[in-house]
Structure formats: structure tokens, C-alpha cells
């Protein structure tokens, strides 16, 4: 299980901010989230959405250790 965090408009789309989700890789998490909620799946795939695993930005489809924190980050707007 990974702890998934959604930020900005992503949590508005999903209706939640934080959830435990099963998935061995970032891609598997994305697939599971999209299967449950097509709007969220689309929002996660939008241009500029980055992924951080344990607070470090990752690219591609890295494997996830058990208990990993996976954050989906829309374009950052500054403060």
C-alpha cells in the first residue's frame, strides 16, 4: 500500500486529499485511481502534473516500497 496525496485542483476533482492505495509502481497506482474515478485519472494525466515519491520528484514508472508516500502535484503556482 502507498499513501497517495493529492494537491491543488486534484483533490477538488477527487473529493479527497489523502488515501491508502495498493500498487507496486506509480503506473499501477495511476491505473487503479483512473479505474475508480475516470475524472481523476484524466486530471492526473494532464500536462504539468508531477509525481513525488517520498518527497522527491520522479519520472517514468518507478517501483514503490511498501508505505511509500506518493504525491500528485499540479503545476505549482507560487505563493
Amino acid at each position, binding site marked *: 500500500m502507498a499513501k497517495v*496525496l493529492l*494537491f*491543488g*485542483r486534484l483533490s*477538488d476533482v477527487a473529493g479527497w486529499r489523502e488515501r491508502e492505495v495498493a500498487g507496486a509502481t506509480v503506473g499501477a497506482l495511476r491505473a487503479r485511481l483512473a479505474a475508480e474515478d475516470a475524472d481523476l485519472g484524466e486530471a492526473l494525466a494532464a500536462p504539468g502534473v508531477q509525481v*513525488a515519491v517520498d*518527497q522527491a520528484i520522479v519520472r517514468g514508472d518507478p517501483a514503490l516500497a511498501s508505505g511509500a508516500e506518493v*504525491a500528485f*502535484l*499540479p*503545476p*505549482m*503556482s*507560487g*505563493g
Partner: protein
Amino acid sequence: MITLTEAPFDPGALLGDFSRGRTETGAIASFTGLARAEEGAAQILELEAYPGFTEARIGEIAEEARARFSLDDFLVLHRVGKIAPGEAIVFVATAARHRRAAFEACDFLMDYLKSKAPFWKKSHGPDGARWIEPTSQDHADLGRWEKESS
């Protein structure tokens, strides 16, 4: 030091603490960003951060500024959560031997904080809430530093 806070803060108290007891610093620049009231079209601003991640990314840029401008010290305090018109959103102070470095480092940090820092910004207006994306002016401001370093 990089701090995120949900509570309103007084920029004067921060500058007072930051400037006290310095003997080799010749120059302290500061910037305070305030939420404008927009003449009654007042919108509550809401800022979301990713605790830990946000401070770490700002810290990386601040360390870059420290090296690039030979800073003696810096302070960044940023509000998160809901911010009322007239309240301070961000405070940055930089200390250096000379004023050019202090000004430029403060300006550089603010450009980063306003355009690229890991915040997600929502405006609560009379027509509901909307997420705000960075402005083209913010990107143009940040571009000044990228050109200079190339």
C-alpha cells in the same frame, strides 16, 4: 530559515529579530507581500503547501541564493491556509555585506516564491473559488535570472 505558518505574522517583528546583533552585515533587504483588498472585491486567498516538500524546495533555492549572492543569512516566512485582505502572505529578508547583493538576493527569492515555489493557490471570490496559475509577468521576472546565469 524557511518557515510555513497558518497564523498571521508581523513583518516588523521578523525584521527586528533578523537584524539584531549583526556586526559584519552591512545590508539587509526585506520584502513583504500583502493580500490586497482590491477595493472591496476582497477575495480570501487560500494557499496549500506540501509540508516538508515545500520547505525543502524553497530551501534549495535559498541555498542557491546564499552562494550566488554571498549572503550572510536569509529568512523566508510564508503563510499557508486562508489569508484575509491586508494580511501579510510572505516575508523574505536577506543579509549581505553590500546592498546590491542583499537587494538582488531578495528579489531573486521573491521571483521564485511567486512563480515556481510548491504552493497551490485558490481565490475565494463572490463567484466561488478558483485555482490561480502563475502569471506571465511572474515567468518574465524569473526569466531575468536565467538569462543572467547563462
